[in-house]
């Protein structure tokens, strides 16, 4: 999907109106390896941009997922809680982490579009 915006920490947010869907990038899931546990935020939780929003754990290590935008959580994705491997299979689609109502859509301006994120990934190689 072309409307995703990415952070340097490899989260993405896809926005329709003021509703965002948040996940981690395919690059991130690959770097993490086999995901064995995730914790997603509960509905109603208020998150600031950059705040710890979720946890993703591989066999090797635990990592934080930081919210790419500020807002109020609508729902976490129970499917990845039940089946953490879905994050590896489909990080940028079915493996989303949570839906959020954006409180400040202007924050999106500071995030990278797909082309900018791809260029950023090249600098990490």
């Amino acid at each position: 999907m072309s409307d995703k915006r990415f952070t340097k920490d490899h989260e993405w947010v896809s926005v329709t109106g003021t509703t965002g869907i948040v996940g981690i990038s395919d690059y991130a899931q690959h770097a993490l390896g086999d995901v064995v546990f995730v914790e997603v935020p509960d509905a109603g939780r208020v998150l600031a941009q950059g705040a710890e929003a979720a946890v993703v754990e591989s066999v090797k290590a635990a990592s934080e997922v930081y919210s790419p935008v500020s807002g109020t959580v609508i729902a976490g994705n129970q499917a990845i809680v039940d089946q953490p491997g879905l994050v590896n299979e489909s990080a940028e689609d079915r493996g989303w982490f949570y839906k959020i109502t954006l409180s400040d859509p202007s924050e999106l301006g500071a995030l990278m579009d797909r082309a900018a994120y791809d260029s950023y990934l090249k600098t990490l190689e």
Partner: protein
Amino acid sequence: MTASPDTPILTVPLDTLHRGLGGKMVPFAGYAMPVQYPAGILTEHLHTRTSASLFDVSHMGQVEITGPDCARWLETLVPGDIQGLGIGKTRYTVFTNDQGGIQDDLMVSKLAPDRLFLVINAACKRADFAHMQAMIGDKVSVRMIEDRALLALQGPLAASALAALSPEAAAMTFMSIAEIQIADVACLATRSGYTGEDGWELSVPVTEAEALARKLLDLPGVMPAGLGARDSLRLEAGLCLYGSDIDTATTPVEANLSWIMGKRRRTEGGFPGAAIIQKQLAEGPARLRVGIQPLGRAPARAHTEITDAAGNRLGEICSGGFGPSADRPIAMGYVPAAFAAIGTPLKLVVRGKALDAHVCALPFVPHRYFKG
């Protein structure tokens, strides 16, 4: 790969092979080592339990001790029964310090009455060698073997796979050592490992290591596996990782490793810290390493705080993570002796939340060694 000048990274003899196989190389104990290959830790772990995997453990130290009474002299440094170890047999033991703490854990094999072979941890090997030289170097010859790689073939299909390259290997039983030919390479083979599975550790000349590793990888059912899988496999097997589960401030009794000390050594002592260890054996230790089963799905990693139901601190997780074969989170930790009984409820403080857990038996996955 670049390394800053003040932290030179050493390479193992199979470095080219690892990179060619797509190994993800990370610094470990001063060496660039493959933490995983493209298959990933989970797959490599499960493959080891169902088939067989080849691990490179060449970063570990290999030492030969030779000379009259070398078993008796080594016993002055370790609490294990080395004099009573049979020729051709291997035993797990530890180096203790004057406080009874563990300086390293190691495998000792007896090749002849006057010839011992030791495998010691990579991060400890220089210190271990200096310690042995200082303490017994004037009584016996202590030689670090620098010209041999160490390969571990582990898994239930290791025996049938290896039989194609060495009919001699299959005759060995768990915790035995033999000098055998594998694909015409002279190997010092022990039927041992650190995964809980049947398998071999093969000490091979550096010059032959890559060719032999390729032959082993060509055997049916054998895949390469990295340090990541090695760690999750040994945790499921309830085996200690030096520096995480045991260290200089932990005695073998506290580490629940009293079984490594036979009756004679317990009675006679004669190793560093013996008085402290004998006192703990007689009176029981204040704290003990136990298996810990988190009851939810969240893994509890090393250094996670362990509390009682009321929130009083009991200790810490020393190793914890997800067990791919157990298919659930698993951990080991230290608790006061009064909380060490199987079934004792505990709380694990993970990201500020007190999660339910209880003390459980080790290992998490049954050992499947070949006892003959």
